[in-house]
Each structure stands twice: as structure tokens, then as C-alpha cells.
């Protein structure tokens, strides 16, 4: 096997490729399709995983009941879940999102279960003693204790979700970054693969810097 320049294109070639894909509209359309799937899957996984994790933190019965199931789902390879979802639900959007959500929920559950267990009930007693309203107790006493865990779940969640979405798109979608990477893989087009990869990573970094890091700085300012 001999090394060829096409196997690792220069930054200039990749930039040019990103530009070309942007101009012809393909990059933006595929990025948008993937981001929609990432966003929907992430929101659904958080909406289900956070209450489930907190329930397990406060109910010993729920913890005993669900702990084994969560452990099993955490250890099933993402690929198996994706394949099963496509076989059971068909090659459609629902199957893609369901596969991602099922893969992500156990990680959120485990993180938030620890968060729920770490709540300092001495601080909750302050709210009770001073008769602070439930809403204010939630916002000013309870949630701030959960923020580190919510942040961890968000960070690890986004990283995991977009990776799984790409695999699901590669296998069973007709658009999205994963789908396009599959096409370029078949043509052995490394330039195209890297152009899409860098474009998508750029967006994820932008999201991290503009949304998550700002949120983190706002809620964890007291630790600085």
C-alpha cells in the first residue's frame, strides 16, 4: 500500500471543499437535517432521562426496579439498538430518533440519579423553615444543586447524541451528515468526509461555546 495525497487532503483542499458544498446547498441541507435529529433526540432524552434519574434517586423501590435495566441498556452497543429500531419501526425518522434516545437515556439517568442523591437536604430545610415558596425553592435552592449534573449530562449527551445520529443516518436515512459520509465512503472521497466532519464539529463547538459554556459560566460563577 502506498501513501497518496488524497488520503489526507491539505487544510486548503478541505476548506475549498466546504465552500463548494456550501455553495451548492448540499452541506447546509444535510447539516440542518442532522441538527434537527440531534436536537429532537437530545430534548426527548433529557425530558425522559432527568425525571427518571431523579425518581431513582429518591425512590429505593424505583432504584431497585430500574437499576438492572439501566445497566443493561448502558452496555448494549449503540449499533444493536439502531439496527433493532430500524427493523422494528422501519427506515424512518421515528426509528432514527428512537434509537438515539434509547442509547442516550441510560447515561442521563445514571448522572441525574447521582445528582439527586447529592442534594443537600440541610439546605432544603432552610427553605422549609423560612416557608419559601415551592417555585422559589425549586429555582434558588434545588436546581442550583443539580446544575453540575445537568451540565455534565448535557455535555456528554450532545457528544454522544451526534455520534449516534451519524451512525443511524449512515444506516437508514436519505439525508443528513451521516448519510452523506456514507456516500463519500463508497466513493473513497476522503476530502468530502473531512469537509463534512470539520463543518459539523465546528457547529458543535459553536454550540458548546455559545450556549453550554455561557450557561455554565452563569450558573457556576460562584465557584470561580
Amino acid at each position: 500500500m502506498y501513501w497518496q495525497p488524497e488520503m489526507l487532503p491539505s487544510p486548503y483542499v478541505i476548506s475549498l471543499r466546504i465552500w463548494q458544498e456550501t455553495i451548492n446547498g448540499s452541506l447546509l441541507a444535510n447539516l440542518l437535517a442532522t441538527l434537527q435529529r440531534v436536537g429532537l433526540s437530545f430534548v426527548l432524552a433529557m425530558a425522559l432521562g432527568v425525571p427518571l434519574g431523579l425518581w431513582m434517586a429518591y425512590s429505593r423501590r424505583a432504584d431497585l426496579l430500574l437499576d438492572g435495566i439501566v445497566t443493561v441498556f448502558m452496555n448494549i452497543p449503540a449499533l444493536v439498538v439502531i439496527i433493532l429500531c430500524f427493523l422494528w419501526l422501519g427506515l424512518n425518522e421515528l426509528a432514527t430518533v428512537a434509537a438515539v434516545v434509547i442509547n442516550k437515556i441510560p447515561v442521563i439517568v445514571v448522572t441525574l440519579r447521582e445528582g439527586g442523591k447529592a442534594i443537600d437536604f440541610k439546605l432544603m430545610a432552610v427553605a422549609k423553615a423560612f416557608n419559601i415558596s415551592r417555585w422559589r425553592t425549586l429555582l434558588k435552592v434545588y436546581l442550583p444543586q443539580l446544575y453540575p449534573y445537568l451540565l455534565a449530562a448535557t455535555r456528554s449527551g450532545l457528544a454522544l447524541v451526534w455520534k449516534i445520529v451519524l451512525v443511524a443516518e449512515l444506516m437508514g436515512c436519505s439525508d443528513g451528515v451521516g448519510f452523506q459520509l456514507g456516500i463519500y465512503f463508497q466513493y473513497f472521497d476522503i476530502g468530502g468526509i473531512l469537509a463534512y466532519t470539520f463543518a459539523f464539529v465546528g457547529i458543535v463547538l459553536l454550540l458548546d461555546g455559545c450556549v453550554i459554556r455561557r450557561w455554565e459560566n452563569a450558573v457556576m460563577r460562584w465557584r470561580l
Partner: protein
Amino acid sequence: MMNVRISTKAYANSAAPVIKDLNFNLERGEFLAIVGPSGAGKSSLLNLIAGVDTKFEGAIASQTPDAKPLTIGIMFQEPRLMPWLTLLENVCLVSDSLESTLVIKRAHALLDDVGLAGLAGQYPNQLSGGMQRRVALARALMAEPDILLLDEPLVSLDQPAATQLRELLHNVWQARQFTVVYVTHQLDEAIAMADRILFLSTSPARIIKEEIIDLPRPRQQQNIDALGASLRGRAGLLSGCMD
């Protein structure tokens, strides 16, 4: 003003009650000290009065002329400030409105009263233990309490910080004339501050003696020492109820 009648208070993980047959009245404007050894159930008693713990047999009934519920302020043994809130936000937390200019002004005034003017924007982790307790006192006062519950407020403070906080507590009580329930295991501290002292036994907590402190204020150390020695000298009666 308030009648405290606790038949039994026990915890789920222990068969023996921590408090048994404990009855006393609280009068408006009085400074009551509750003295007992560590582990006697003093903090449990304060948690019951504060309504933090509602699992007990008995009743805590307030008797006010207008039938209005009594407002309770509490200083726990540890300051229990929210680390993510600034000092100003911690003090405002217990008020009805967080945003009102009036509330913020009052919180600033209270921080000023406890000697922390200018530190309103700091976080609790930037303060010493003594300063954090003063914030906890400002927070308790922000609730405009009819009854202020103080759980060992001077414990583990160094002497200058303890003296400063004791004087502050005394001045605030004299200025506002609310009822104070002051829990401590140190007899001299109770004599220095209180109008009346209840002595608790341990396991389970019961009142074994009540003493009216009829010393003029401000109280002189020699008077405190003399009364302390006299109370300690009453053989057997108070054995084991104070350090």
C-alpha cells in the same frame, strides 16, 4: 405566645425517643435559653418548633391576639447559606419578593447591621465562618420573625468572633424585641444572654430545671461566673446536662 408540648419525638432508625414529655411556654419578647449536653435533642427540638420536622407526637400551638401565624426565623448550627447566591441574594431569599427595591434596601440595611456592608455582592465561600454566621443572622432577621431560633450560634467560633456575634445578637434582640430561643451547651453563654433557662436531660430530652435569670443587663462577667458556679454547685440536679 407559643405552647410547645412534645409527648414523643423518635427517629425511624432508633427505637428510643429523643424527646419525651417536654412542655413549655414561650412569652412574647423573652430570651429563652435551652441548655443541655451535646446530643440531648436540642437541635431536634428547634427543628420541631421551626416546622422543619413535623413527625412527632404532641402539638406546637401559637396563641396570638389576631390569630395570625407566627413568623419564625432560624439560625442553624452551620450557616447553611446557599453557596451559589451572593450575600444579598441569600438574605433576600426569605423575603416575599426578590426583586422589590424595598426588599433589596432592607437586605442592604441588615447586612450593614451585622457589619457586612459593602460585601453584599460576595459569595459565602469568600467569607470566614464568623462572617457567614452573621449573614445567617441577617437572613433570619429578614424574615421579620416573631420568634428567632438560634442553634448554638457561637459554637466553633474563635473568642473575638464569638464576642462580636454575642453582642450583635443581644443588640438586635433589644432593638426589635422578638422572642428568642437560644440553644446552647454552654451555661455561661446562656446566663450571659437569657431571661430564662431550661435545662434538658439527655436520652430522652426532658426539662429537669427552669431558672429565671434576674441579672441586670449588660451582664457583668463576675455575675455570670458567680451564678454559673452556683448552678453547677447544686449537686446532682444538673449533672450531665451541660458541659
